[in-house]
């Protein structure tokens, strides 16, 4: 009797728990059923073929990295609005669904699952942070829906599989650009590194830079770390100062970079600082003040670029969101437009077709430069090096990916220029890689006065002439074009 009593009690309590679980499940299940009937089907292939085309975006709208998520989302929203105003894709409107990841990688996976299996999006855009893109990308790949990351620079992101793309350049390329610029242009031997050990972006750039710079014959003088957001790095800067570095590579975000450059200046460490695209923001110069004078950073574009599509983008963005777009907004805008372009070209909006169409993107005239997707699903595009002069980021030089020759690009560019639909704006952009984009970052001497022209490509011949030979296997650096070689009419038409 007593034994059964014990057992029964076990049952009774167990039943209580069971009931509880059932209630919990019921709640989830009801949501599932009421939400969407086809939800049960599972995989993401079942997007409806009429009505608006759904596109998902997962971003950090809250939490530590909200700055980046909100900027990117603004850029994407602008692209969607413009596309819808111009008739949408395949005659259908685009519907954007943005969901918050709260800056956490694990939530990235959940959100992408939801976008694909619940909201039936045909493609996913996002994330900024590589760690979150890695979690989301695995889901997108598994469920067979293409994903374009606007700005995750870590190599591993697109290595996930054939559905994962990006429109920004990768860490190793950017590190290469800066290392090469330091060695070839500035001719410096001893460079210090100060990177954020808690940011995968910063650490990735620092690791690649360290390797490449040493390969190129340089010496790392002082290898220091900081913890993102820590207001004071005087100890690290002091070490760098006593190590006698000729320049400091500071691959972090602009918030920290601006602060640290001011500290360095106050400490009498006056060597130039170098950074990556994480520096790109109108706030950088406000934060750093005059301490940033003479420092360099690599970037996708500059909002002071006079190319018409850049200026149009900057103007509409400003009108809509009341702020100068940063690099992330521009990349979000480009990622969305690359996607729409691919959708238009793709025979269907199924995952495989769409991924193939994205992979075939060639010389797409983006705000951040001409975008070509390579075999590893990374964007092949040049990086520009900017130097802050009189408080304005000023163009210094362009550096191309290894093996990608500017002359080839000029040829491709001019060919595409005529084919591009959007008229003069696109034409000049396509030609830009020739080195025209090179030109006109605002207040640069004679170029600034160059008027309405973008100073865009001076054509094939010019490109060839100045290309240092093509198949070198190393990147070719383009010299800054002389004003006389510019053809102001090109973009002005």
């Amino acid at each position, binding site marked *: 009797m007593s034994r059964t009593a014990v057992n029964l009690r076990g049952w009774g309590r167990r039943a209580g728990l069971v009931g509880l679980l059932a209630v919990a499940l019921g709640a989830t299940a009801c949501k599932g059923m009421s939400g969407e009937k086809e939800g049960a089907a599972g995989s993401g292939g079942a997007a409806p073929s009429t009505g608006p085309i759904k596109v998902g975006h997962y971003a950090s*709208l*809250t*939490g*530590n990295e*909200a*700055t980046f*998520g*909100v*900027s990117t989302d603004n850029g994407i929203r602008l692209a969607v609005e413009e596309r819808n105003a111009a008739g949408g894709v395949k005659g259908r409107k685009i519907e954007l669904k943005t969901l918050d990841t709260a800056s956490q990688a694990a939530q990235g996976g959940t959100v992408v699952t939801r976008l694909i299996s619940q909201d039936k999006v045909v493609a996913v855009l996002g994330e900024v942070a590589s760690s979150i893109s890695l979690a989301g990308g695995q889901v997108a790949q598994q469920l067979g829906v293409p994903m374009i990351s606007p700005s995750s620079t870590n190599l591993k992101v697109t290595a996930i599989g054939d559905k994962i793309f990006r429109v920004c350049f990768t860490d190793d390329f950017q590190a290469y650009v800066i290392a090469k610029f330091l060695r070839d242009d500035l001719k410096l031997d001893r460079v210090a590194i100060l990177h954020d*050990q808690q940011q995968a972006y910063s650490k990735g750039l620092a690791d690649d830079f360290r390797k490449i710079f040493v390969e190129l014959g340089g010496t790392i003088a002082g290898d*220091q*770390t*900081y*913890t*993102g*957001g*820590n*207001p*004071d*790095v*005087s*100890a*690290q800067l*002091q*070490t760098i100062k*006593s190590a006698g570095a000729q320049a400091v590579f500071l691959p972090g975000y*602009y*918030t*920290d970079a*601006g*602060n640290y450059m*001011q500290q360095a200046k*106050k*400490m*009498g460490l006056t060597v130039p600082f170098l950074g990556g695209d994480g520096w790109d923001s109108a*706030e950088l110069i*406000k*934060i*750093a*003040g005059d301490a940033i004078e003479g420092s360099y950073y690599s970037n996708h574009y500059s909002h002071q670029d006079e190319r018409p599509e850049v200026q149009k983008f900057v103007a509409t963005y400003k009108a809509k969101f009341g*702020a100068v777009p940063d690099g992330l907004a521009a990349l979000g805008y480009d990622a969305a437009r690359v996607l729409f372009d691919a959708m238009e070209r793709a025979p269907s909006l199924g995952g495989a077709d769409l991924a193939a169409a994205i992979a075939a993107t060639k010389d797409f005239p983006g705000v951040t430069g001409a975008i070509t997707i390579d075999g590893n699903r990374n964007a092949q595009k040049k990086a520009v090096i900017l130097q802050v002069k009189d408080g304005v980021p000023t163009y210094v030089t362009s550096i191309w990916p290894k093996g990608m020759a500017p002359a080839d690009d000029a040829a491709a560019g001019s060919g595409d220029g005529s084919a591009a639909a959007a008229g003069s704006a696109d034409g000049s952009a396509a030609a830009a890689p020739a080195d025209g984009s090179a030109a006109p970052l605002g207040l640069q001497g004679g170029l600034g006065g160059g008027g309405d022209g973008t100073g865009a490509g001076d054509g094939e011949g010019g490109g060839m002439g100045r290309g240092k030979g093509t198949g070198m296997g190393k990147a070719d650096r383009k010299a800054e074009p002389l004003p006389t070689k510019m053809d102001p009419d090109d973009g002005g038409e």
Partner: protein
Amino acid sequence: MTTLLQTLVSALSLGSVYALIALGYTLVYGVLRFINFAHSDVFTLGAWSAVSVAGAIGWSVTGGGHFALPVVLAASMAICAVVGVTIEALAYRPLRRAPRLNVLITAIGVSLLMQNVGQLRWAFGPTPTASPRLMTDHTVTTLAGVRIGTVDVAIVELAVMLMLCLEVLVYRTRLGRAMRAVSFDERTASLMGINVNRVVSITFAIGSALAAAAGVIYTMKYPTVGQPADATWILLGLKAFIAAVVGGIGNVRGAVAGAMMIAGLEKFGAAYVSSRMENVYVFAVLILVLLLRPSGLFGRAVVEKV
């Protein structure tokens, strides 16, 4: 020598910020015996108020001469004092008799609310911004290659001044005596005719105003103000809290000493050992201090009554 002096200067500035925040933690803990997790967000609010006020008047770029600092400081302290009192009245007072864990969760809720509302576009927005230039930073002197600017001097002066005011308030006035009485035994204090709610409100106002001052000092020294939900604020608040604990929570002088210790430890550790572990030092010392002297370095051991 240069490194030593440089580290000392930066530890002093950082220590001043920590100390002012730690005082708020210590005051509230002393009176109500609970960790006000939303305190670091009041500090954030102080910094952002400085940015907003200076921006509204138009001092954010040009500087407002001698008036800028006092006006912005006063405005920011007033805003935070009002917010602090409101938080106490709405969120904490209903839970005065509830278990401490509940108050703690509520405090976390308030903290989350402040961070995420601050991040909204119509509030401060999700973007970091540049600090206002509240005073020009002249070089006062250069010692062994280390530059000491007016800002460095002003920060320490301001912090010391505020701490002295607090010291006088707590140990030399009737109000201070009431605060200490409530801290010692709330019920007896109320029987003795002390208006406990009023004392608690004033404590929150003072603590929040000090956090606001820390925020303003922060904007003076460092050129970036992170967005309201930035992990930086939480970490700074956490370190200040640790400073209060190490110094013996509930002890005003201990909080200041603890803050200077923590800042020194962090900066000297980074300069002389390795910058990779600067946060680990702080947490490791916290654990060590608590194990060896559970009530903090300057705290009195509490004998538990049965």
